[in-house]
C-alpha cells in the first residue's frame, strides 16, 4: 500500500466550505423530515390504538406499506415517480425550488413516520387502560383523552426509542445523495472526486456523523431526565443490561 495521506485537503481550498454546507443540508433535511415523521407518527400511532376500526385499519395500511419498502425506493418514487403526475404549474415550481430536497424530505418523513408510529403505539400500549377509562369517565371525549392524557404520558415514555429512531433518520438522510441532494455524504464524495483523497474525505464525513449522533443522544438523554415522570421510568445504572 503506497497511499500518501494529505489531511490538509480537508481545509484547503473549497473543501472545508463543502463539508460545512453538507452538514447544514443534512441537518435541514433531517429536521424537516423529522417534523413530518413525528406528526405522521403521532397521528398514525394514535389512530392504531383508537377505538374506531376504520381509523385503525387506515393507519395500519399506511404503516405496513411504507416501512416495509426500502427508503431508497421511496426516494426514487417521490423524486422521479410522482412529479410527472402533478399539474404542470406545480412541476415548474418544484424545478425552480430544489425538487430533490423536497422529495428527500417527503421520503424521509413518510418512511420514518411509519416507523415512528410503531414507537408511539408501543408507548400508548404501555399506559394502563384504566388511564383512558378514567379520562373518558370524567367526561372527556376520545379525542380529548388522547390529547390531554394519553399522548402527553406516552410521548415522555418513548424518549429512548424515539431518540434511536431520530438517529436512524439522521443516518438515513445520507440516502438522499442518490437523488443528488447535496448533503454530507454527497459532499464527502465530491471532495473525493476533486482531490482523489478518498480516505481523508470519508474519515471526515464519518467523524461528523458520529459526532452528530453522539450530540443528539446526549441532548435527548438530558431531555429524558428533565421530563421523566417520577415512578414511571426505571432508569439508572441498573437499567442497562
Amino acid at each position, binding site marked *: 500500500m503506497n497511499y500518501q495521506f494529505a489531511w490538509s485537503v480537508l481545509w484547503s481550498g473549497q473543501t472545508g466550505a463543502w463539508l460545512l454546507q453538507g452538514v447544514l443540508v443534512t441537518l435541514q433535511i433531517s429536521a424537516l423530515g423529522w417534523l413530518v415523521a413525528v406528526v405522521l407518527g403521532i397521528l398514525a400511532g394514535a389512530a392504531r390504538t383508537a377505538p374506531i376500526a376504520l381509523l385503525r385499519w387506515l393507519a395500519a395500511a399506511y404503516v405496513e*406499506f411504507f416501512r416495509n419498502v426500502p427508503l*431508497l425506493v421511496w426516494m426514487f*418514487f417521490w423524486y422521479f415517480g410522482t412529479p410527472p403526475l402533478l399539474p404542470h404549474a406545480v412541476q415548474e415550481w418544484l424545478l425552480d425550488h430544489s425538487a430533490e430536497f423536497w422529495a428527500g424530505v417527503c421520503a424521509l418523513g413518510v418512511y420514518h413516520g411509519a416507523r415512528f408510529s410503531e414507537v408511539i403505539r408501543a408507548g400508548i400500549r404501555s399506559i394502563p387502560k384504566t388511564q383512558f377509562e378514567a379520562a373518558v369517565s370524567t367526561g372527556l371525549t376520545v379525542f380529548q383523552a388522547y390529547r390531554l392524557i394519553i399522548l402527553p404520558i406516552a410521548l415522555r415514555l418513548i424518549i429512548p426509542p424515539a431518540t434511536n429512531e431520530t438517529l436512524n433518520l439522521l443516518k438515513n*438522510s445520507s440516502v438522499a445523495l442518490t437523488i443528488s441532494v447535496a448533503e454530507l455524504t454527497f459532499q464527502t*464524495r465530491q471532495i473525493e472526486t476533486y482531490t482523489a483523497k478518498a480516505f481523508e474525505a470519508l474519515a471526515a464525513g464519518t467523524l461528523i456523523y458520529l459526532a452528530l449522533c453522539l450530540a443528539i443522544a446526549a441532548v435527548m438523554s438530558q431531555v429524558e431526565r428533565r421530563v421523566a415522570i417520577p415512578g414511571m421510568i426505571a432508569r439508572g445504572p441498573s437499567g442497562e443490561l
Partner: protein
Amino acid sequence: MDFRVIADNFSFLMLQGLIGFGSFAGGTLRLALPAIVLGFLLGTFIGLARLARLSWVSVPAKIYVEFFRGVPLVMVIFWFWFIIPTLLGRSLPEYFVALTAFVIFEAAYLAEIVRAGIQSVPRGQVEAATATGLARGPMMRYVILPQALRNMIPALLTQFIVLLKDTSLASIIGYVDLTKAAQIVNNREIRPFELYLFIAVIYWLCSYGMSSYARRLESTGQSAV
C-alpha cells in the same frame, strides 16, 4: 400510466433484479442471503466478545458495535468501495465490495441481537450447568447458545428484513439488484411511477410476509426450530 412496461420487463426485474440470474452479477437475494449468514457468524463472535470478562476483548467489541451503529450504511459502502482498491491495488467486483460492507455493517447490529439473546437465558441455567461440572466453553455451546438462538429468531428475522431493504443501497456502487434493475429499465422506458411502485410492491411482499411470520413466532412464543 401504463403498466405494460412491468409485464414487458417482468423477467428481467424478477430474475436479474430480485434473484440474480442473468448477464449481470447481481440480485437482491443473492446479496442478502449470504450477507445475513456471514453477518450472523461475525455478529455471534462480536456479541460473545462483548460479554467477555476480559476488558481487552469486550472493549474493542463495544467500540466496533457503537462505531458501526453511529455511521450511515451509505458511508460504510463508500468506505469499502474506495478503500479496498487502495489497499489491494486493484478493484474488486461490486458484488464482493457490497457483500463485505453488508457483512461488516450488519454484524454490529446482529451482535446486539446475539448479546440480548444470550442475556435472555435465565441465570439459573448457567448455575445448573456449572453445578453439573460443565466448563465455560461446553456450557456456552450445549446449554446457553441453543436456548439463546431460539429466543433470537424473531429479532433475527426482523434484522433480515432490514438487511433485505438495505441491499437496495448496493445499487449506488452499481450492483444490479432489484432497485438498479428498475433504474436500468426506467432509463430505457421512462416510466418511473409504474416501475418504482412495482418494485415497492415486490419489496413489500417480501418484507411484510417475513414480518408477519416473525410476529406470529413472537406472539405464540413458539420457535421455528
